[in-house]
């Protein structure tokens, strides 16, 4: 195999790339601000960082240019599929069983103290995003309405529970359906003005809606207590039995020794159940006329109208249902944290959920779940990489590089799997046998 480029030319190009990297790294890496003892910001210069960045780019670029074989331009992945059909069919079931066993295995393996982090930070946290991803998937993946303000409905759900429980003492189990209902009606309310919009315009209006909700929650202090948030929200109960050490608590009633982990495990099963409900409802809806109408609407609005589909109602139901699941997730979030403030409902959250849906492959339930594991679990894994502190110094916090890695992941995805992790879509209805549709038919860039 001959090198794809002469060594000198590769050196020259790599040198250029290194220069660009140095130029980019100068403002980002070289200049940093530090707080000194008298609380003043001082400019710190870290020339070595810039040198490392430039050297890495130079070496990497040189190796790629000089030694990497030019890949033959691959034909578009028509039947793109990572999984064999049998495995793809078995995976969701195995996944659900594994999820049911997960807290027990962790508890048995690491004990009540050690397993808390795993069940809470990994299990519960990821499942919240799986649920949000599936909820948004109804709006974006099925109905094709690009919603950049999805977190607003999450916030509506969270504040519904927070306010109703602190002011009126309503229990979580009453507030959960109320939160869903509330979020759904807000979804319909947003739906009305944006019905005429499509694509980019719709995205901007939904983005604005998300910002409005968070601005209202921040500034209407009489209502939401502003940035300070709502504290001491009642904790979850086991259908009325509180998770505490009292004799009428959960542990005493069931003759167990009181442990804080009980609540976490219950929360885990609760969010697992909520997420699975979202999933099952979505699957059922897809086989019903309304779900079919959503998908048809995504494909061609004019054709839908001429076939007698009421596009107004169809869009509204998609918005409202998607919002409802965000509302459920929101009230779960509030009962889990025991505290809500507007900082939890920023645009970053919307972007993360949307990224999960897009990375997962729009419309694919399994893809969305996998993407949530990667995106949210990945963030948590970064926290674990404490050994990096020994290399880069004690002030190095790997989780700060989250966004950088997300960006990198997105770029890599765009190159390797431009239509999402799982780009094929199983038909909702079929006559004789199921056939997966290839990703090549999945439109790109059509929100």
């Amino acid at each position, binding site marked *: 195999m001959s090198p794809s480029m002469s060594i000198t030319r590769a050196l020259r190009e790599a040198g250029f790339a290194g220069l660009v990297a140095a130029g980019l790294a100068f403002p980002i890496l070289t200049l940093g601000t530090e707080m000194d003892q008298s609380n003043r910001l001082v400019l710190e210069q870290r020339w070595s960082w810039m040198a490392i960045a430039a050297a890495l780019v130079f070496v990497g670029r040189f190796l790629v240019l000089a030694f990497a074989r030019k890949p033959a331009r691959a034909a578009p992945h028509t039947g793109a599929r990572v999984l064999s059909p049998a495995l793809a069919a078995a995976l969701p079931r195995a996944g659900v069983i594994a999820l049911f066993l997960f807290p027990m295995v962790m508890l048995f393996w690491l004990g009540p103290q050690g397993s808390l982090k795993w069940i809470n930070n990994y299990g519960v946290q990821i499942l919240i995003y799986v649920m949000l991803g599936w909820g948004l998937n109804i709006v974006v993946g099925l109905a094709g309405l690009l919603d950049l303000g999805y977190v607003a409905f999450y916030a509506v759900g969270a504040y519904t529970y927070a306010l109703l429980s602190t002011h009126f003492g309503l229990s979580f189990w009453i507030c959960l359906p109320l939160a869903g209902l509330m979020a759904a009606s807000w979804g319909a309310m947003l739906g009305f003005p944006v019905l005429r919009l499509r694509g980019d315009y719709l995205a901007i209006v939904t983005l604005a809606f998300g910002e409005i909700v968070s601005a209202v929650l921040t500034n209407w202090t009489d209502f939401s207590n502003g940035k300070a948030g709502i504290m001491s929200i009642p904790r979850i109960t086991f259908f009325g039995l509180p998770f505490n050490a009292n004799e009428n608590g959960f542990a005493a009633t069931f003759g167990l020794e009181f442990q804080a982990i009980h609540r976490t495990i219950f929360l885990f099963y609760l969010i697992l159940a909520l997420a699975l409900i979202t999933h099952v409802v979505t699957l059922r809806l897809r086989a019903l006329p309304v779900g*079919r109408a959503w998908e*048809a609407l*995504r494909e*061609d609005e*004019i054709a839908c109208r001429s*076939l007698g589909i*009421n596009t107004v109602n169809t869009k509204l139901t998609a918005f409202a249902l998607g919002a409802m699941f965000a509302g459920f997730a929101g009230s779960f979030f509030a009962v889990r944290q025991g505290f809500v403030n507007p900082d939890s409902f920023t645009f970053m959250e919307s972007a993360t959920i949307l990224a999960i849906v897009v990375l997962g492959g729009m419309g694919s339930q399994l893809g969305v779940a996998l993407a949530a594991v990667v995106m949210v679990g990945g963030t948590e894994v970064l926290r674990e990489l404490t050994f990096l502190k020994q290399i880069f110094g004690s002030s190095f916090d790997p989780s700060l590089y989250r966004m950088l890695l997300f960006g990198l992941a997105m770029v890599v995805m765009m190159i390797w799997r431009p239509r999402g992790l799982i780009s094929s879509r199983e038909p909702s209805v*079929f006559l004789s*046998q199921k056939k997966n549709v290839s990703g090549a038919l999945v439109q790109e860039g059509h929100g």
Partner: protein
Amino acid sequence: MSAPLLSIQKLEASYGQIVALKGVDLDIMPGEIVTVIGANGAGKSTTMMSVFGRPRASAGKIIFDGQDITHKPAHEIARMGLAQSPEGRRIFPRLSVLENLQMGASVDGMAHFQADLERMFDIFPRLKERIDQRGGTLSGGEQQMLAIARALMSRPRLLMLDEPSLGLAPLVVKQIFEVIRDLNRNDGLSVFLVEQNAFHALKLAHRGYVMVNGQITLSGTGRDLLANPQVRAAYLEGAH
């Protein structure tokens, strides 16, 4: 004479500043195939689209089965028994053939779905072979068949076809036109056909209208128009 099934009266419509229709009069009797022929941009498709309210008529009236539908929303019009196979077919590319047909039956509910499906397979056996395939993977001719079958699934009284021959091989065009003729003969389906392929359209249609610059300039039976020297010179020379 009985009342027309669809009656378009002095219809005017425009896209923003551009006036597309300048007073169009057109009638379709029950059981009739009526075609509108004309050059690009004459307003043929606009006439058909404005029946469904896109663009909305700025003046004039559209009456279907005795009811004024000029200002009705599109989905209500579809529910009255008017089906359209729009220009460019507009099938749902990511839905399967079966799902596409189910969408067509939305208006009708699923009551006669099985029976209607069998009927479509009789008319278009190719669709049966492709039933689980994505709409987008069909050939152009198959997509046109699907678009017509999808429109027929709602059991319409009037089928509106916008350029069904667009981009299809001559043999396929012939096939599709034969299907339209059979549907009209056997089931008494009324058909409103907009075509650039004037020769085939006029041969098929009972009556035809010639459209120029947003106005109807000529009308008559299909045979008369085919024989008309003006029509021959403008639309048929070297066509077939």
